[in-house]
Structures are given as structure tokens and as C-alpha cells.
């Protein structure tokens, strides 16, 4: 089947920004188009991953609008929504279009603008991804569900509060070196453990922020990559796996593992004909600190209950055996929901190209993995890339 390439990438700063959603999307897309040497190229499709632009910003019909503003008419335009994994799902659709022969060149944009409305209203929009009947009706929030998972994990595996705090500490350490990250200062372990309680045992520093931002990648067939003159500096898309779990946490057979990850990663490794130990660098969806540990185990990097051992040994830090969230993860890079998946892909593509920010480059990685969650522990997309 057709080998698919990522020929170029772009990303805005993540954080609380002045730009509108259209400006953010345009800015990231233009950078990716330039990076791909594709300013005069004909794009077959524009795919926009965004969780809820209509409610966060009042802007509707986003894919048509952006395609027009980028001067890419008459490219086909589609918005893809799978909650906070919308960016990865848009990428998945782009890969499918190129693999099927329906397209040669596709522009993928992930974008979210969340700071234009007050926090309460934003939380209400985000809470729509959890079960209304079984969770939201009782006052449940994504953070409260993560707390249920964290407490059970700590109970079953003896994880301590200070152990868990190592995750946000690492995230901020990496984020401090990422010029585009939402948070660029290191934090002390004591500060994480002692910060304001959100949902016991999770504190403010265990939770990723809501952010504004956009990221973009260009997906191309080998023919299109050749035409653009981008065969040398392109990254190969080796696999995409996508899976769901039961909507309400109470219907899931196990609290300390997210089966959608196991399923999506299993599909991706099969497609790439690789094993978890082949991965040299990965971006895992750490919307809450506990998820980074569970993600590592569910992707297959380590046995259940043992992710923290790798963290303590420094194996998930930049110089370690399997660096995780090298650019700060959702916690420090920021989490403009629809943009996150595309930002993860952009960041691992730069890792493979040897172009990660100073101090964050992993030594000549051959294979990279991204893992993006689209709900509370649901609707996961796992992608694998190679040189």
C-alpha cells in the first residue's frame, strides 16, 4: 500500500493568546506549508481537528472558513471531532485519504481557542465528553474521574503521592526548554504535592491547563513528497490505531488500565510490524499526571504497576531509554484540546528529523509514537512514525 509521509510541520505558541481561532489555525498551517515547500502546491483536502469551536468561540463552519482564508479553495474541507483526540483523528483521516488514493496532498490543522470564555463555561463544555447520565448528573468532572482512577491505582500498586508528583515535575522541566510551551518554568516536587486539591488525591499541578493554540502537519503521498522535493526530510507514517472504551468509567472492567489505549496501540504496532521496545521517543496524553503512568503501561512500554520505576530511574527523561513527553506533555506544553494530537505528531516529527528544541533532542530516534485521548480515557488514537 501507498507509503504516506509527513512532509512539513507547524505550530503556534500554546497558552492564553490574543489571536482568534482563525488566526491561530492560519499561522500554524502557513508554517507547515512553508516547511513542506508547498506554497504553490495544490491541496486536495484541508482537515481540521477541533473539539468544539462553535461553543468555545462562536465560530462555526471552521474547515470551510480556514480553507478560504488560506487561499486553498477548491480543496475539500472537513472538520473532524472526537473530543480532545480530534487532531489525531483529523490526521488519521488524512492518512486514509492518501493511502486510498483519494488524495495526494492534505493539510491537517488541529486548533482550539479556549480562553475567550470564562473558566466555568469552558469546564461545562469540556464536561460534555463524560457521561451525562452516570457522571455529570452527579457533579462528576474529568478531574474527579481521574481521581477515582488515581486512588485505585495508588491502592493497588502502592504508588505514593510524591511518586506521582514526579510526572508534573518532569513535564515542567521539559516545558521550560520548549519555546512554544504554555508553562516554561520548572516546579518543585513539594509544590505539586502541596498545591490546591482539585479532586483528592489530585492537585492543581496534576491537571493539564486549558490553552489556546494550533498545530499543523502536511500529509503527502510518496509522489507528492517527491514533487515537493521533500523526500529526504520527510517522516514516514508507519501506523495509525484508533479505539474506544465504554463511555462511563463505571462500565469499564478495570480502573487502572484504559482498554482503548491497549486496543489502539495493539492495532498500531501490528500495522507498523513493531513492538513497544522498538519505540525511541513518545508523546503520551497526560491530561492528568496519573494517565502518563497508565498510558506507558497500556502502550506496552512497561508491565502494569511498574511505570513509576522507569520514571524514578530517569528512563523517561530526555537522556533515558524511552523519553516520554519530551516537549512538556499536555501539562506544560499546554492543552488546546483539538490541537494537542497534531502538536504531538509535529513534536515527534521534529525529533525524528533531529530538529527538536535545544536540550530536548533525543539521540537519533528511529521510531516514535504518539497517543492522544478523546474523552475521559476514551476514543484513543495511537500513531507510529519512522525515518
Amino acid at each position: 500500500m501507498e507509503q504516506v509521509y509527513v512532509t512539513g510541520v507547524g505550530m503556534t505558541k500554546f497558552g492564553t493568546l490574543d489571536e482568534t481561532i482563525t488566526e491561530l489555525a492560519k499561522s500554524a498551517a502557513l508554517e507547515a506549508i512553508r516547511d513542506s515547500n508547498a506554497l504553490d502546491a495544490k491541496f486536495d483536502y484541508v482537515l481540521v481537528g477541533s473539539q468544539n469551536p462553535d461553543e468555545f468561540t462562536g465560530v462555526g463552519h471552521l474547515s470551510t472558513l480556514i480553507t478560504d482564508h488560506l487561499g486553498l479553495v477548491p480543496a475539500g474541507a472537513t472538520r473532524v471531532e472526537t473530543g480532545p483526540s480530534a487532531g489525531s483523528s483529523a490526521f488519521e483521516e488524512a492518512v486514509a485519504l492518501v493511502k486510498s488514493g483519494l488524495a495526494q496532498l492534505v493539510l491537517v490543522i488541529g486548533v482550539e481557542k479556549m480562553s475567550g470564555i470564562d473558566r466555568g463555561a469552558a469546564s461545562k463544555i469540556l464536561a460534555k465528553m463524560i457521561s451525562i447520565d452516570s457522571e455529570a448528573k452527579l457533579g462528576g468532572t474529568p478531574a474527579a474521574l481521574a481521581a477515582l482512577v488515581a486512588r485505585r491505582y495508588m491502592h493497588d500498586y502502592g504508588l505514593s503521592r510524591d511518586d506521582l508528583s514526579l510526572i508534573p515535575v518532569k513535564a515542567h522541566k521539559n516545558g521550560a526548554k520548549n519555546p512554544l510551551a504554555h508553562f516554561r518554568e520548572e516546579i518543585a516536587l513539594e509544590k505539586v504535592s502541596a498545591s490546591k486539591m482539585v479532586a483528592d488525591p489530585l492537585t492543581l499541578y496534576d491537571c493539564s491547563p486549558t490553552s489556546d493554540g494550533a498545530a499543523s502537519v502536511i500529509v503527502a503521498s510518496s509522489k507528492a513528497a517527491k514533487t515537493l522535493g521533500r523526500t529526504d526530510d520527510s517522516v514516514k507514517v508507519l501506523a495509525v490505531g484508533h479505539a474506544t472504551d465504554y463511555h462511563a468509567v463505571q462500565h469499564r472492567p478495570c480502573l487502572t488500565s484504559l482498554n482503548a489505549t491497549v486496543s489502539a496501540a495493539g492495532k498500531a504496532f501490528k500495522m507498523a510490524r513493531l513492538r513497544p521496545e522498538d519505540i525511541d521517543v513518545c508523546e503520551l496524553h497526560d491530561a492528568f499526571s496519573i494517565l502518563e503512568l497508565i498510558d506507558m503501561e497500556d502502550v506496552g512500554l512497561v508491565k502494569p504497576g511498574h511505570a513509576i520505576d522507569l520514571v524514578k530511574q530517569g528512563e523517561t527523561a530526555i537522556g533515558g531509554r524511552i523519553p516520554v513527553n519530551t516537549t512538556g506533555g499536555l501539562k506544560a506544553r499546554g492543552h488546546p484540546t483539538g490541537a494537542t494530537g497534531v502538536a504531538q505528531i509535529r513534536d515527534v516529527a521534529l525529533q525524528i528529523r533531529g530538529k527538536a528544541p535545544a536540550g530536548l533532542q533525543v539521540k537519533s530516534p528511529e521510531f516514535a509514537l504518539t497517543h492522544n485521548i478523546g474523552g475521559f480515557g476514551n476514543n484513543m488514537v495511537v500513531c507510529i512514525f519512522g525515518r
Partner: protein
Amino acid sequence: MTIDISKCKRCGRAVVPPRDICPYCGPGAGETIHLAVAGEGKVASYTVSYMPPEGFNSPLLLVLVELSEGGMVLCLGDTEDTSHVRIGGAASVYVDREGRYRYTPQASEGHRPE
């Protein structure tokens, strides 16, 4: 005090609130059996939420209860005293007037230290 659950004719798994199609087996398993159970079980996990959504008071106790018949259900707890809640502790579930699942510790297990 009883609560309604469904049980799958194929896999036997319980689901709360009841469903017509078993989420684990799909439509091929046929319609589930609906029944009322006592609502007794044990605590699978819990949290005290300090940043609940608008319209809910902080702190808010949420308890995930695993029923004796199988199946789990998230319940609101009484925040007055959360010291007795522990994973594995006995739990009783009922439905309040607003149709929300409520957690109470069973009398025999009440106020047992952590």
C-alpha cells in the same frame, strides 16, 4: 430500597442503569433481562472533589460502588463525614428523589477507621 439493573443473557454481566443492548456483547446477544436488586456492594474507589461544576457544593464526595451482582455505579456520598470511606469497604446504593444514585456505608461497616 432497590435499584434497577440489566443482565446479559449471553455474558451474564450486570449494567447500571439498565440497558437493552449489552454493551459488552452487542446486539447479537439479544435483549437483556431487567431486574431490581438490593444495591449492596463494596467501594471500588472514591474521591472528594473540591472543584465541582456550577450548581454543586464543594466538597463533593463521589463513590464508585461495585455491586454484589456485578457491575459498578458512581454514587453521590454524604460529605459531612468522609473518614469512613475506603476501598473495599461495604456500601449500599439507593436512588434519591432526583433520580441520582446515592452511597451510604452499611451499618456494620460504618465509621470503621481507615
